[in-house]
């Protein structure tokens, strides 16, 4: 990157380090941090939405909807994340391709499963085999977001389900006494109040989600842990201009700092959010705020 980097063998100390840390492969590493943050930015709201829908379904008055909601919560929570990521994503991808295959290639007569192979017509491939690599990567990334949303949505659903039940019964009864319909009392009384009960559980889920991002590599997405392992590994002088020994410890130390810093930052934000949500609530924290202000 710098002009003096043309011949790394002659460099020493900080100059060598500055060249080393700005190689193309290191930029892939830095870019991976962006990928992880982007994943969190997309997966967290989608998981929250899944959780909200799951909780609504689980307390629905319509029995089949309730079964779906409860089934979703218990099944997904019970399956180990790693198994889910290995099995579910491949199955989801094959399900999409199978659907496209049925629509796009009705004249195709060969079986889709031949021994170990999964074969759909070329036009049904997702993304198409001819698509540039960035499309494959984006597709894989979105599949990952969806999987994270489904897995963490189940945990969020359970938290929100519990939070909805934690809203004092008296509040709901008052709403009914005012003549609100079930829908009105749900949206106007229960939902605004339940967040404060849901927050501790949701913050747990968020912390676990941050730490679960290395599962990305199972899906073929190169995340920061993959790059730390790759860059920290021994490099011999034959295949690299910057040979070094086993430096994985330093790279993982950098990841440790990143994850600790990020979770610390989250804690601060969540604490503020908690204070904001407690305002005017019929909880101990809300009561304490009222007294302090009075």
């Amino acid at each position, binding site marked *: 990157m710098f002009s003096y980097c043309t011949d790394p063998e002659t460099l020493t100390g900080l100059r060598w380090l500055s060249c080393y840390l700005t*190689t*193309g*492969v*290191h*930029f*892939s590493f830095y870019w991976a941090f962006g990928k992880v943050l982007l994943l969190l930015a997309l997966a967290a709201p989608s998981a929250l939405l899944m959780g909200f829908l799951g909780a609504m379904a689980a307390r629905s008055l319509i029995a089949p909807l309730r079964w779906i909601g409860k089934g979703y919560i218990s099944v997904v929570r019970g399956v180990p994340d790693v198994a889910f990521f*290995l099995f579910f994503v*491949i199955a989801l*991808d*094959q399900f999409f*391709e199978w659907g496209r295959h049925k*629509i*796009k*290639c009705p004249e195709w007569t060969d079986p889709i499963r*031949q*021994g*170990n*192979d*999964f*074969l*759909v*017509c*070329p*036009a049904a*491939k997702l993304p*198409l*085999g*001819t698509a*540039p*690599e960035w499309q*494959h990567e984006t597709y894989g990334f979105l599949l990952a977001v969806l999987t994270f949303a489904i897995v963490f949505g189940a945990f969020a659903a359970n938290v929100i389900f519990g939070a909805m039940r934690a809203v004092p019964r008296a509040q709901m009864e008052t709403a009914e006494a005012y003549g609100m319909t079930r829908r009105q009392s749900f949206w106007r009384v229960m939902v605004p109040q339940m967040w404060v009960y849901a927050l501790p559980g949701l913050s747990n889920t968020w912390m676990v989600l941050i730490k679960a991002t290395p599962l990305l*590599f*199972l899906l*073929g997405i*190169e995340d920061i842990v993959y790059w730390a*392992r*790759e860059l920290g*590994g*021994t490099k*011999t*002088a*034959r*295949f*690299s*201009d*910057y*040979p070094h020994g*086993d430096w*994985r410890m330093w790279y993982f130390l950098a990841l440790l700092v990143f994850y600790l810093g990020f979770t610390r930052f989250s804690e601060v934000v969540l604490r503020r959010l908690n204070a904001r949500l407690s305002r005017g609530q019929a909880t101990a924290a809300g009561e304490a705020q009222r007294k302090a202000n009075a």
Partner: protein
Amino acid sequence: MMKSILTLGTALAMTAGAAFAESHAMTVRIGTEGAYAPFNFINDAGEIDGFEKELGDELCVRAELTCEWVKNDWDSIIPNLVSGNYDIIMAGMSITPERDEVIDFTQNYTPPSDSAFAAASEDVDLEGGVIAAQTATIQAAHIAEGGATLLEFATPEETVAAVRNGEADAVFADKDYLVPLVEENAELMFVGDDVPLGGGVGVGLRESDTELKEKLDTAIASMKEDGTLNTMITKWFGEDAKTYE
């Protein structure tokens, strides 16, 4: 109205299909690990590099294919091939009967080569000690059959690190992989006898892809014939590496 939508849909699908059929014969996605120098590795610029990269690109030119390289974890490299995420594997994968049951192989592009033990001292016990090897490799299978205790790791790098930090007595891997490491590290040395394993390294593909297999076989055979393959082997694995007669 409904009918015209359907017609439009069919027309679109057909054009897409036709355009696709034309170009599809051309594009092949190659899966590799990117952590097994000199076979395949990530260079300083962050690109896939190594013997298989150079060989694969040449094969694609000869077989008139457009190739795209994809990185994949070793553990899931075969499942992702059969489910169609890429079309062929070039990842230093030795041809073995067990793998041949699940996927297909072209003829080998490196001759059957030796696996070797590398250790930190001369007097390690290869028969009863702890030997590190990468998961799901022929070397791991070989150790598992013998009397030594097998210690498996997901990446080749970790198997060598295990010997350095004393967790394992020796590492058992392809000699081609170990040579550069032993040459540059005073603390590592080859011990015991080399073991010939496997049927050489070949291109892995889905069993249903017979046409592609034929094309690649022809391309590999032509490279063996005109000696370009031997030149590449010597370039990446050194003068002592086994070449084709």
